[in-house]
């Protein structure tokens, strides 16, 4: 079995087994199903966060009233938004503790794409996520686990589109 990228680069703390990480996420999601009657989802929180900011800063320009009517729900600083806040915090705490036990001090991987490319990619995927009302968490982790047809359509198609594009881009750059 070939080594993962992190195992090949010296001085970096090896990432944990994906199976254990995945099992942990699965258990976490079970807790979410019970606690919130809804699995882990992330893209909705971006929309809610944007709507909350829009309501404060530019309610007319961004037509927040129409949005609230169309969604049939006012944006709130709810558990879903705090979940994403927590996710940022979790990344921070985990990376700090890794460094404390001897992980690599230099966290920055080389910039493989321009900030514009990163932002454009982020924008594209968020449009897709909000169209589909879910992302790799809401659909691919939570929806699939519940047998949701929409999620079982979303997930393979998303991977297919992403793979085709990534491989084409790699070939254009002269790799693979």
């Amino acid at each position, binding site marked *: 079995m070939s080594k993962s990228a992190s195992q090949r680069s010296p001085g970096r703390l090896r990432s*944990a087994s994906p199976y254990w990480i995945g099992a942990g996420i699965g258990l976490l999601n079970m807790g979410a199903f019970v606690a919130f009657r809804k699995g882990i989802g992330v893209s909705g929180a971006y929309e809610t966060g944007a709507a909350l900011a829009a309501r404060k800063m530019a309610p007319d320009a961004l037509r927040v009233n129409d949005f609230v009517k169309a969604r049939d729900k006012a944006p709130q600083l709810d558990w879903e938004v705090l979940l994403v806040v927590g996710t940022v915090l979790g990344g921070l705490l*985990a990376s700090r503790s890794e460094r404390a036990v001897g992980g690599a001090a230099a966290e920055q991987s080389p910039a493989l794409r321009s900030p514009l490319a990163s932002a454009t990619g982020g924008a594209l995927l968020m449009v*897709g996520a909000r*169209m589909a009302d879910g992302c790799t968490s809401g659909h691919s982790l939570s929806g699939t686990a*519940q047998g949701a047809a929409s999620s079982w359509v979303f997930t393979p198609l998303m991977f297919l589109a992403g793979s085709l594009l990534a491989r084409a881009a790699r070939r254009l750059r002269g790799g693979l």
Partner: protein
Amino acid sequence: MPEKSNNARRLLGLATGVAFGALLRRGGLDDSRTIVGQLEGTDARVAKTMGSAVAVAALGHRWLLSGGQVTTEPKPLNPVAVVGGSLLFGAGMALSGYCPGTAAVAVGSGRREGAWAAAGMLVAAAGFVASYPRLKKALETGGAGKMVLLGGKPPAPRTALNVAVRPGAQRFEAAAAND
């Protein structure tokens, strides 16, 4: 299980997020190279992580369903929205090397690429807020409802409880009926 108070739910949400972010970080999924590696076919960690997560959650969900402790909450199968959305999402993920969750983790672990991706996501989310009212009808074209695959349990029908816990909804429903 009784409805938790809003603050308890918020705290639980925060805690769930912290655990989620920490797990993703420990799995190396805050690195765009991991995600692009999966898409290019050179790194299987994303598939292994998601596969195990879904397997555990699926078994767990079935078990909890049989105990009456959870419901099934699928997103509606709106073909235009789901198919179109999945293609755009895949493209964006290939371009940025992130998804909404991993970008959040990357912001926490200090990765510039993740921060730029997240910024793009927030801008797009704002744009979506502004456009959603006009897009809604098109997105819901040909919708097949909240379908669940064979073997799953369809969502519980709307009961009085479902309406009572969303007191604001009745106002909007009345407004929509007058449109």
